């Protein structure tokens, strides 16, 4: 299968990829770049596990072709993490028991990060609305909402 060259930024690094035109972005991130924190739960846009940031906005990497990422800045869960400490959202998820198996978690964190970056004062209804596109089969969501509410303080501080 012929490939197309694309250049984009992934987690802050200039990245070149040669991908088959039909390759979805999630597969390119996972297989070509080894960024396996982006999970594929459905490949149909239903579950939100594959959520990444595209120029800061939360999008589903299973609903995008990799070639569409050319010229854009992508951030994955790996780009939102650091080895030294958990980020405020990650720490809040841990504190509130907002994950069990952890498969949905990267998508949850990325989506919540997009929300709180834009709106650090988001109330519970807004958070629920934003996360309504992310499915979790383990937790029952309540702890996830609580964790995101709790993490707001750090985003409010960052804004100030």
């Amino acid at each position, binding site marked *: 299968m012929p490939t197309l060259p694309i250049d984009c930024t992934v987690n802050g690094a200039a990245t070149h990829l040669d991908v088959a035109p039909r390759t979805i972005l999630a597969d390119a991130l996972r297989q070509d770049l*080894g960024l396996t924190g982006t999970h594929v739960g459905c490949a149909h846009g239903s579950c939100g596990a594959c959520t990444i940031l595209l120029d800061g906005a939360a999008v589903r990497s299973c609903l995008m072709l990799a070639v569409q990422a050319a010229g854009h800045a992508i951030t994955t869960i790996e780009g939102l993490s650091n080895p030294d400490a958990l980020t405020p959202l990650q720490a809040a998820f*841990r504190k509130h028991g907002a994950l069990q198996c952890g498969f949905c978690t990267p998508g949850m964190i990325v989506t919540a990060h997009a929300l709180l970056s834009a709106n650090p004062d988001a109330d519970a209804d807004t958070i629920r609305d934003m996360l309504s596109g992310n499915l979790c089969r383990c937790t029952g969501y309540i702890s996830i909402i609580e964790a995101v509410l709790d993490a707001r303080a750090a985003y409010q501080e960052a804004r100030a």
Partner: protein
Amino acid sequence: MNAPLVGQPIERIEDLRLLRGAGCFTDDIAAPDALAAVILRSPLAHGLITRLDTEAAQKLPGVVSIITARTIGMPVPTIPLRLAPLAELVPYEQPVIAQDRVRYVGEPIAMVVATSAAIAEDALDLIELEIAPLPAIVTNDDAAAAAALLFPDSGSNLCITYTARLGDAAQEFPGAIIVEDDFSTQRHTAATMETRGLLARWDAARGHLTVHGAAKAPWAGRRMLARQLGLDEFSIDMIAVDVGGGFGMRGEFYPEDFLVPFAARHLDRPVKWIEDRREHLLSANHAREFDAHLQLILSPAGDILAVRGRARCNLGAYMRANASIAPRNVAQFFSGPYRIPNIAIDTDVFLTNKTPTGTYRGPGRFETDFFRERLLDLAAERLGMDRVVLRRRNLITSAQMPHPIATVSAPVKAEELDSGDYAETLDRCLGAIGWDRLQPLRGQRINGRHHGVAVGCFIEGGAAGPSEHARLELGADGMVDVFVGSSMVGQGLETVLLQISADALGLPMERLRIFHGSTTYLRIGFGSFHSRSTVMGGTAILNAATTLKEAIRAAAGRRLNCAPDEVLLGAGTATNPSGAIVNWAELAADVPAAPGQFDNHTHTYAYGAHAAHVGVDIATGHVEIFD
């Protein structure tokens, strides 16, 4: 020693990797040399395969092999029952691939192995498949009417009837009130967020197979696979990695658990298969499709005298590895936490042209709890009694423990409820939801929603089954490695078992490492299901810890010139009566690995009560849960 870790809310250690997207689920295992497998599944519910031509697909560049029943050799192996096996169920076991007949939408017919999943999927479209349709048996009524037979040789679609008996429910009950009704529960499926997946590698030189993606009961899966492939069990390693949800569905032996390793050996190449969401919904175990007609017989004062009736299980097309559990449980656990002296319930298990079923979150109990609690509400109405008073009157009291429950036919094992204070959980539940406060809302229509308030009591089995095993090893770095047969299915196993280990050894959790669920860690182990890991794996660890501490005392005694029982163990230290001290790390070479085992073949039962306040929008059917 510090306060015990068990019982404290501890932030989970597995979270550190999972939160960063640094977990390793099956599809995350880097395997650039692996071929990709995809499966051609039956588009029809029932039919005879009249043509299966793979020639054009085989020619597509990148396709390495197309595996069918012919490749494997007919008759192909079938998947045996892991739980409650019976000779009479053997004819209904699922073949690992369809041979001449398909019995459900999603049944594997061929497996394409290619250099990429995309090419393998292209090849699927080139396989020429023709199926002569047979009437599809969808409901239990269809199955009973038998317009078609799934297994023509058996002469019926009724696969087995389980009976649950206690006392004599057939007797006359003069003056008693009989409440009866029809009930049904719909099909459910686990729909774990991570679909199933496997990566198999064959090492031809060693005659050794490694299968990544094992879960739940890896040792049992290995035994089945070894038999099917004609290999020695110890020639197969089952490797468990992070698991995106189990719920009873994952980790049972499915057709792919044979096909993927078979392909790896057949082609002498690593093969990876990652289920897509559509296949998951078609092929992973379904559950809970039951209907029932039941009679509850009560004295006018509200004492339950008997239950009798019939439940029917829509099993799907085959009797899968754990499929006998739900129909058995529906019959056996109808009585739940209540005193029902006479029980006669039969469960007919019907074969239908639907996805086969298996265990899923409290198999059989969800169904039968609903049947029972609904009957109790109907009975309360009929007797003009308060629903809670009727329940409380019939709950088994702690003084009546142990209390026998119905015995199920085949395999027969008498069961009893061991202990519990069922009224206590009911009272606490009512208090927590504010039961009295909610009563006036019952039946009211508020803002377009009809309000309903209900309560139910239940029991749930757990903490039993085959023995579990563990081994502790003290390293020269002073760390203790904990190996355990329990497997992780996303339930926080690592933290729980390390809490137990740390308390048992008097070490901080940072001084322990845990290795679980892979057959490489222990010669024998079992796994995680039936709410058992904390008790079974945890107790195996406790037993191993006792042995390890004895070995440390003995080694320290030799080093410090005192008797082993004079040695005082601290957090990683051993001290003799005169205060001489040695670190565990220095003793590592003299401390052998400590095995531990725990057996519990007696079922024990947890219990509880559940209340809910909901509003139903009559126009749309939408249910809102208020509390």
